[in-house]
């Protein structure tokens, strides 16, 4: 694109009071040869915007550098259409509001930011959205026909999209259809399951194609372009869909492992699932002799919250036992239910049902089972009653019900093994090693994706598909594939309905966005996508292995085969590539390199060190803006460069900076690890790993490793910014100036 650039400096909000305007304008024309450079006291006002629009129309300006407030605000005001490049230079939050006015260092900071903005605008091309050659599909595939799956399909269809529902059982309904009643809003009484009506609605809906007794054999392609092969009872079927919802649900924890609670030993000890099915079939009876049960003890957390079994809380078992105790009361008002619990957990409004069950006269005992035994034809339980502070014995029990927890259907019973890498320490004698949960090769078969990174969704340690439960529920680590219901986390039916609706909306959004060639969350609307300069590829596989979303497949020669519709535009591949062959139209290794070059590095004797901070634009950058808004102060020697994700940082930038005399480099990004906050899941972790290997570069340059530092900055950590920076400045002060200055 032939660029005509205009630079517009706002002098409002205190910017004009803190800076001298003329030197800024001079550098724009002298250093970047840009002749259009104007200032305005209220650039985001009507008159200011008209000033820019006038130049767009009159002067043919198509590249607009706005030196004003943070790019996080007024982006709608400064939108001049998709064919115009807009680059924002943050002179407000990160200069005028955090630095003393009219000081030499403040002026130098502003000048550097303006140079970096001009350099960046110079290297930016307007992105052109990706358009596949094939036709896009906006149909939604739902795998799993339980309450979540059926609801997702129905909600999809109601929203005007075609849904394809695949269920492995002969009939729809899942666990919902096996229940007698359910407890749901408003949690006062038992409610009908509604399974029949829901199944009928799904089956009769003209926009839902149901495949029962069927499984997904293969899914290839990417969002908008998925090809699905379905194995049906008598043959096969193919579908093309735009997005996928996995709602394959849960299985009960294997009670055969709970022999210490009498399961398998005594006929009248059963699981809550068996109890539910018995109740649904008719009466609650003693399996041993078919007599009606009159006295039942529920063991809560049977195998749950137990490091030997299920370490987590399934969140529904308390409610299930309350429900089943209510069945018993309805069957026989004189019957007694004891509920032996660790903590009663009835979340939210479900507390009302707990109250009801208490009011019904059920007896709640906080404690743990010591022994389940048989005496005559009755059971007894000996328990530690925590609140009584005694060991107690409950006799004459007809049934003991084990409230077992929920295991995601994705969790394999036996962890799959793969061939261990040569340097693995914990390989077995055959050279095999356990697959890690966050590998695509871990989970049970459900989707059979033709992805380089494995056929299933990567999971968290307990086998639930990995997604950020607060920031982006339903998202998974495969773009366009969403999870809903108990596969995502254990949940009651009311929450499964919410989940289904949420996932359906996400799936539809994805199908629509993909058809337009734009990204989904978190870079929703982004039109750029990575382009590969294949001539220089060395088939090192780093991009295909490190992409957090499995977007890049490989051919047999290990050449990367990008799938742009699977891409989340985080740039992790760009950061991974040692040959720097991956770049976006508006984000590239060279562009950041030129921004680094734009920074003026003073001579050593000026005693003005220079620090470059690469800042994650999702969390750390807003925190910086917040610190500016709060008028916090920090060193004027730091230059912040926002990046899409720390995972997109290419190590060549470290070498570029240090060899130019930059004294230190700070990487500010999201928390990583089990409780990660990275919007691209693995980005900050990858950055951290890469940085730990940077010492090689530093050694080669004979520089101290303290010059490079990684800090975790959450969006709410703004108050830590001054301290983080001053600590780093002290470190740099100690190690002294970079000896490469002036080379």
């Amino acid at each position, binding site marked *: 694109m032939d660029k005509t650039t205009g630079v517009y400096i706002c002098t409002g909000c205190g910017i004009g009071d803190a800076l001298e305007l003329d030197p800024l304008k001079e550098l724009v024309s002298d250093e970047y040869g840009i002749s259009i450079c104007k200032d305005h006291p209220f650039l985001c006002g009507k008159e200011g915007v008209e000033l820019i629009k006038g130049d767009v129309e009159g002067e043919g300006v198509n590249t607009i550098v706005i030196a004003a407030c943070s790019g996080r605000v007024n982006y709608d005001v400064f939108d001049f259409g998709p064919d115009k490049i807009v680059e924002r230079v943050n002179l407000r939050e990160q200069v005028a509001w955090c630095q003393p006015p009219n000081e030499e260092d403040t002026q130098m900071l502003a000048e550097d930011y303006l140079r970096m903005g001009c350099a960046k605008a110079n290297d930016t091309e307007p992105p052109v959205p990706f358009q596949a050659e094939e036709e896009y599909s906006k149909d939604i595939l739902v795998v799993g026909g339980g309450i979540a799956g059926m609801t997702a399909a129905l909600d999809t269809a109601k929203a005007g999209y075609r849904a394809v529902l695949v269920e492995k059982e002969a009939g729809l309904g899942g666990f919902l259809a096996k229940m007698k009643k359910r407890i749901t809003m408003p949690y006062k009484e038992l409610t009908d399951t509604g399974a029949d009506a829901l199944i009928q609605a799904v089956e009769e809906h003209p926009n839902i194609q149901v495949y029962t007794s069927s499984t997904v054999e293969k899914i290839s392609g990417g969002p908008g372009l998925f090809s699905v092969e379905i194995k049906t009872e008598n043959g096969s079927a193919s579908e093309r869909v735009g997005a996928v919802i996995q709602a394959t649900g849960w299985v009960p924890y294997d009670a055969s492992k709970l022999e210490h609670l009498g399961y398998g030993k005594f006929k009248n000890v059963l699981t809550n699932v068996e109890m539910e099915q018995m109740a649904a079939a008719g009466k609650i009876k003693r399996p041993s002799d078919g007599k009606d049960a009159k006295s039942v003890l529920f063991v809560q957390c049977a195998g749950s919250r137990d490091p030997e079994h299920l370490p987590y809380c399934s969140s529904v078992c308390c409610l299930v036992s309350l429900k089943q105790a209510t069945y018993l009361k309805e069957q026989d008002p004189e019957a007694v239910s004891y509920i032996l619990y660790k903590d009663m957990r009835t979340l939210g409004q479900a507390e009302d049902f707990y109250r009801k069950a*208490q*009011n019904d*006269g059920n*007896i*709640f*005992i906080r404690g743990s089972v010591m022994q389940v035994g048989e005496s005559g034809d009755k059971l007894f339980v000996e328990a530690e*009653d925590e609140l*009584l502070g*005694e060991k*107690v014995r409950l006799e004459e029990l007809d049934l003991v019900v084990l409230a077992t927890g929920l295991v995601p259907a994705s969790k394999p019973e036996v962890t799959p093994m793969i061939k261990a890498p040569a340097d693995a320490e914990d390989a077995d004698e055959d050279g095999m090693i356990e697959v890690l949960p966050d590998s695509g090769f871990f989970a049970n078969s459900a989707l059979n994706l033709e992805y380089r990174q494995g056929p299933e969704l990567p999971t968290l340690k307990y086998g639930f598909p990995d997604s950020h439960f607060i920031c982006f529920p339903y998202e998974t680590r495969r773009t366009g594939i969403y999870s809903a219901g108990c596969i995502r986390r254990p949940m009651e039916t009311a929450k499964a309905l919410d989940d289904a609706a949420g996932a359906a909306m996400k799936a539809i959004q994805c199908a629509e966005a993909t058809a337009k060639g734009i990204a989904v969350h978190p870079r929703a609307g982004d039109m750029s996508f990575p382009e590969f300069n294949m001539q220089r590829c060395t088939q090192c596989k780093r991009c295909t292995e490190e992409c957090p979303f499995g977007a890049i497949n490989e051919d047999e020669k290990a050449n990367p085969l990008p799938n742009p519709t699977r891409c989340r535009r985080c740039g992790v591949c760009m950061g991974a590539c040692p040959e720097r062959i991956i770049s976006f139209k508006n984000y590239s290794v060279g562009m950041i390199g030129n921004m680094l070059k734009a920074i003026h590095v003073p001579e050593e004797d000026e005693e003005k060190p220079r620090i470059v901070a690469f800042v994650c634009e999702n969390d750390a950058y807003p925190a910086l803006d917040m610190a500016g808004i709060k008028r916090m102060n920090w060193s004027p020697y730091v230059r912040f460069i926002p990046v899409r994700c720390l995972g997109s940082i290419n190590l060549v930038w470290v070498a570029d900076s240090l060899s130019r005399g930059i004294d230190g480099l700070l990487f500010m990004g999201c928390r990583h690890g089990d409780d990660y906050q990275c919007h691209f899941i693995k980005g900050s972790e990858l950055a951290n790993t890469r940085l730990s290997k940077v010492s090689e570069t530093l050694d080669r340059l004979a520089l101290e490793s303290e010059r490079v530092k990684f800090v975790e900055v959450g969006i709410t950590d703004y108050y830590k910014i001054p301290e983080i920076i001053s600590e780093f400045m002290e470190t740099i002060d100690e190690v002294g100036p970079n000896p490469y200055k002036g080379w």
Partner: protein
Amino acid sequence: MANYDPSFAREVFQNVDFGEEIKMCMQCGVCAASCPLSTEMDYPPRQVFTLIRAGKREEVLNCNSIMLCTSCYTCKVRCPRKIPVVDVMHGLAHYALKQGFVPRRQPAVFGREFWAQVYKLGRIDEKDLPRRYFFSEGLVAGIKGTLDFMDVGLRMLLHKRMKLLPERKIKGIQSLRKMLDKAERMGKGGAGA
């Protein structure tokens, strides 16, 4: 090892004023933390409810907790399950005494004399009630108690804070008694209307 026996809980639900309210207890302990005298009690209120649930009849009907309640209502105000803990404690004490237990001697004696006077006069006579209370345990105890309280009585008298005339029966005392008798028959655990 104690055996769980739900029959006492049923007895409490059926016969004790406000007894069924304890079903709602979730054992959070706010009552115990709020009670001004819980440290003096054999069991804090929460624990009393646990004992009822476990069927510990003797322990419950004999524990001083149910008679140490000062009726300050802090527990009732704070209970997240809206259990009227004060009323439950009073109900339990009343029931225990009716069943022949004496969970705490002095408040039981005082309370008996108090109610006897209400039933007799319709009002309380501030001079007469302490006297009856002190002498209810015999002459010696009565003289000792009166002497111990002589200072208090004298000062009250000197500062005009003692009604000199004895309290007379209210006019409607006969009908009041009829009402109360009927209420006792109709009340929980009563003989019926």
